[in-house]
């Protein structure tokens, strides 16, 4: 309390005080989320983020080549897709589920909504923290891939700036998608909604194959362009491997468009759920 008094003295305008208090509240919410993840649920976070990708990597990247159902090089094609999938899915789950539960069953979001910052800022904060979890999940796939895939992970041709950008923007896009899901579906339907949304999301996102390889299944190739995950997967492929991928411009446009649309709708949906 004393610090807020001090700061309100140094910032003379009402708008300045307002912004300062909103910023402090924003940071306070971030601190709470980091603390909760690190201190209280690190295992829950890691298992939720990594268990599915570990099995995908193991079964598709190791078992299938081993039994001759896939080529030896398949692991290299698979890895970028699995990173993208982890980033997006972790971000989706870390927004959608807490929102549904926090708005309805536990009402835990109420205390955040009464914090002295605009409701839209609470939405952005929620998205950013979920995105951070998604990005960390994605990053952890690299060492896991090294352990699991027969050929390990080859980072010799990695474009690191591209990798980091795709990691961050992909995570925010996923968080926006989760926010739309979490605020548009009634709580009693969320388990159905998850099944209906997540399964197609996972399997039409160019996760398990490069988009260019779908040339012989043209209709499916076109369909997958509607999935934001496609652009993240292709972006990861472009950043990590020399494999054929969507044109860079298409990847950038796809990610930015998805981010804008889902981020915008997510914030709007959150504000609508938060106030009536």
């Amino acid at each position, binding site marked *: 309390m004393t610090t807020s008094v001090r700061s309100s003295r140094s910032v003379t305008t009402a708008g300045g005080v307002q912004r300062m*208090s909103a910023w402090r509240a924003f940071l306070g919410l971030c601190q709470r989320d980091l603390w909760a993840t690190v201190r209280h649920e690190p295992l829950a976070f890691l298992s939720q983020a990594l268990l599915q990708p570990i099995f995908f990597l193991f079964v598709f990247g190791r078992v299938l080549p081993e039994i001759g159902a896939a080529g030896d090089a398949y692991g290299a094609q698979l890895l970028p897709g699995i990173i993208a999938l982890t980033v997006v899915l972790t971000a989706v789950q870390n927004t959608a589920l807490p929102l549904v539960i926090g708005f309805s069953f536990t009402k*835990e979001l109420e*205390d955040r909504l009464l914090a002295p910052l605009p409701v839209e800022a609470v939405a952005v904060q929620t998205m950013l923290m979920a995105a951070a979890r998604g990005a960390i999940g994605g990053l952890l796939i690299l060492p896991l891939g090294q352990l699991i895939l027969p050929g390990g992970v080859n980072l010799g041709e990695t474009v690191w700036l591209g990798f980091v950008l795709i990691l961050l923007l992909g995570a925010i896009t996923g968080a926006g998608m989760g926010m739309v899901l979490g605020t548009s579906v009634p709580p009693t339907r969320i388990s159905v909604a998850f099944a209906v949304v997540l399964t197609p999301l996972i399997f039409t996102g160019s996760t398990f194959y490069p988009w260019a390889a779908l040339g012989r299944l043209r209709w499916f190739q076109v369909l997958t362009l509607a999935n934001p995950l496609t652009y993240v997967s292709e972006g990861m492929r472009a950043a990590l491997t020399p494999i054929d991928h969507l044109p860079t411009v298409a990847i950038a446009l796809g990610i930015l468009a998805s981010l804008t649309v889902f981020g915008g709708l997510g914030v709007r949906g959150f504000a609508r759920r938060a106030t009536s």
Partner: protein
Amino acid sequence: MSVESNVDLGAEEGAAGAGPFVLVDELRKRFVSDGPDVVDGISFSVGRGELFGLLGPNGAGKTTTIGVITTRVHPSGGRVLVDGIDVSRDPVGVKRRIAVVPQQSNLDRTLTAVENLSFHAAYFGSNRRDRRLRAREMLARFGLEGREDEAVNNYSGGMAQRLMLARALMHRPQLLVLDEPTSALDPQSRLFLWDTIRDLRRDGVTILLTTHDMDEADLLCDRIAIVDHGKVVALDTPRRLRQLLPSDAGVELVIDGDGDPTQLFSEIEGGRRVEAQPAGQDGWQVRIYGDDDRLTEHAAEMARRAGRPLVELRRIEGTLEDVFVHLTGRELR
């Protein structure tokens, strides 16, 4: 019907100060464009430091009104000011001044009790050292010492309620909104909460309370608004509200001596009806209904003249519950 002997201790006008702390002016709210007005022109004001009660049946519009004051509901019409700030124009400014203790627990179940308090204070800009210190202080004040580091999931209903109140006070709000705070509490917790509410009022915190417990409202509130069908149907001090039912007002006395005293008081000035029944070994309880201010005096005088020693004498008033049911009807909501 209850028998009431003490003098009204509540302030008639609520607290004084520079203008009301909460001003609700012709507030309207309709959730669906072609639906009904859930709040249909509610107006009231809460003075600085006043303890104001909002009573009404379920669905009367209380929660919606509270929702607007706490920035969670957008008004469809009218305006609401908190400390002079319009809730629609500057919700963040309003949020800095208020705290809410909801009906249902909304504690952060991932965190421990002390973390619940500490992070809440962080949202309001308190630094780590200050907030840790204050959190421990508050936990001690609310009888939660020794349970600070437990997950709030393990907390009982009463403990959760106290923790929510402690959390609300972490950032020293000017307005505390209590939404049916005692509905699920045991008598011990309720008494503790009442004491705390009185302390806060003494410290100058403005308090807005909704409740279904009429005794609680009567006991605590400086003024009460009874709301029904989205409108304020009565607004006054508890005492004046109780007097809204003149037929239930009167005086009750217990006198010694043999013989039914009904006849004795039948001609009393200002009395409308007299009932008497034996009380104890050789006494009688007499109820004289009427709203004459001097009924008590007349009754005592008549008993004295008749040579019947007076054992007890008290004023009878309708209860707040009687008035509430009278104003809002008996139908189920």
